[in-house]
């Protein structure tokens, strides 16, 4: 039980990766607030998992304040914040409307900003007890190298990477660690949408063929699961990671360690 006695809030906590993080945190003994737009989140089925649902639209400051009030009243502190809420728009910049661009930044960047900003007072209370508090942002390997037709998403993730370093510098002295997880391809509703949407460039292939081709490009010959991501989030949230801060943690099955895989 690596998180016994800790309180955690996970945005996008009823979504693909967020739900796996919530589940892992609960198994590790944390009290967990799953913040999302709806109790169901982006997955159709919802099993009661023992987390406390908090309604949160990360783009709304009033929502962020209300969510932290709720945590404050019930728990009095926050040890762990995971900013997992995110969206992607599968378009080039020419195809992207200003509204879509703003929406991407509102959720992925402003959402990380607002939730973190209003969580900080509760996190200072947690860190004042002697163990560090931990914020884990969601960057992406797309913040380093680009997937085609995903321009706004790539840009938001680059912004999250820089924000992560900035927050780590500013709040490290207060005992608050800030890191970003940078997933590659992870089997989530977002990925399945990517396979079926305009971003796939399907070329007449079935989704199964496309998925196999994607797996085969990875040195590990698979893409990740939400649990793979939750494993590292859990470590970064725990006191074992007490010296880890300001870093971008790529978790992509080796995908970005290699160059383009030519057909030779």
């Amino acid at each position, binding site marked *: 039980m690596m998180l016994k006695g800790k309180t955690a809030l996970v945005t996008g906590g009823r979504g693909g990766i967020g739900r796996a993080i919530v589940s892992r945190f609960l198994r590790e003994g944390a009290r967990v607030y799953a913040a999302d737009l709806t109790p169901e989140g982006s997955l159709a089925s919802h099993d009661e998992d023992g987390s406390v649902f908090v309604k949160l639209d990360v783009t709304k400051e009033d929502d962020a304040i209300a969510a932290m009030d709720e945590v404050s009243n019930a728990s009095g502190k926050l040890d762990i914040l995971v900013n997992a809420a995110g969206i992607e728009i599968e378009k080039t910049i020419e195809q992207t409307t200003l509204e879509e661009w703003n929406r991407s930044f509102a959720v992925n960047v402003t959402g990380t900003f607002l939730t973190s900003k209003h969580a900080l007072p509760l996190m200072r209370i947690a860190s004042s007890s002697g163990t560090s508090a931990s914020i884990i942002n969601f960057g992406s390997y797309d913040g380093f190298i680009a997937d085609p037709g995903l321009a706004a998403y790539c840009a938001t993730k680059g912004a999250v990477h820089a924000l992560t370093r900035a927050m780590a510098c500013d709040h490290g002295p207060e005992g608050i660690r800030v890191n970003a997880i940078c997933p590659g391809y992870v089997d989530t509703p977002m990925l399945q949408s990517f396979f079926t949407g305009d971003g796939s460039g399907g070329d007449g292939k079935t989704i199964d063929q496309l998925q196999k081709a994607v797996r085969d490009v990875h040195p590990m010959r698979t893409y990740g699961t939400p649990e793979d991501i939750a494993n590292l989030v859990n470590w970064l949230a725990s006191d074992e990671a007490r010296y880890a801060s300001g870093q971008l943690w790529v978790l992509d099955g080796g995908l970005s360690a290699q160059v383009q895989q030519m*057909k030779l």
Partner: protein
Amino acid sequence: MRLVGKNAFVTGGRQGIGRGIVDAFVSEGAAVTTCGRGPRPEGLSSNIVWHSLDVTDAVAVQKLASNMKTTDILVNNAGVQVEKTVTDSSDADWDAVIGVNCRGVFNVCRAFIPRMLSGGSIVNIGSISGNVADPSMALYNASKAFVHGLTRSIAVDHGPDIRCNAICPGWIETGMLDAGFDLATDPAVARSDALARHPSRRFGTPEDIANMSVWLASDEAGFATGQLFTIDGGMTAASPLNPGLF
């Protein structure tokens, strides 16, 4: 003419990228000396000095350096490539790749840096393969990472007198690239697939690399040191996973 009055020494100037750099330096007004294993190549302009030199031979490198005039620009381009995994690589492969790509660069830098003038510029040819791995190129990939590390070390240790940077070429149109495609099941398909993975939709040319070499060698790059400059048509800016190509 950005290199007038400068003396340049370029290793591996016989062909490919090295030859492109030699020709570009000459056209920018530099006095160029180059070298390679074997005799002077045909067609090399008569105003270019050629030395038969194996850069792995530290004594020969020292001897050449001591016989030359002061050097303003040093380009470590000589390199070899062995296409094997770690477990397939022999001791001879190690000696060949590490000997030229690592020891050779070290030998030349050690011999020439004391003879370089203040304001001098070293340009090492690294590779995108030193940053991300090409399959079955284990020793080559590692050797280029060495070049990148040495580049930063020289910049730190020998600034402010000497600047040192590395260029990381991607796929460049040389005989080596064509030979690679010829080995493919369908060379035409292989070539078009590789092109599609380049945002530039073309491979690089020795001139593309020479252009950056000229800039880094010139006084325009006076504040550039200790850095890796990737010239790859955008290939490594893109994810290796491009679903549109499956």
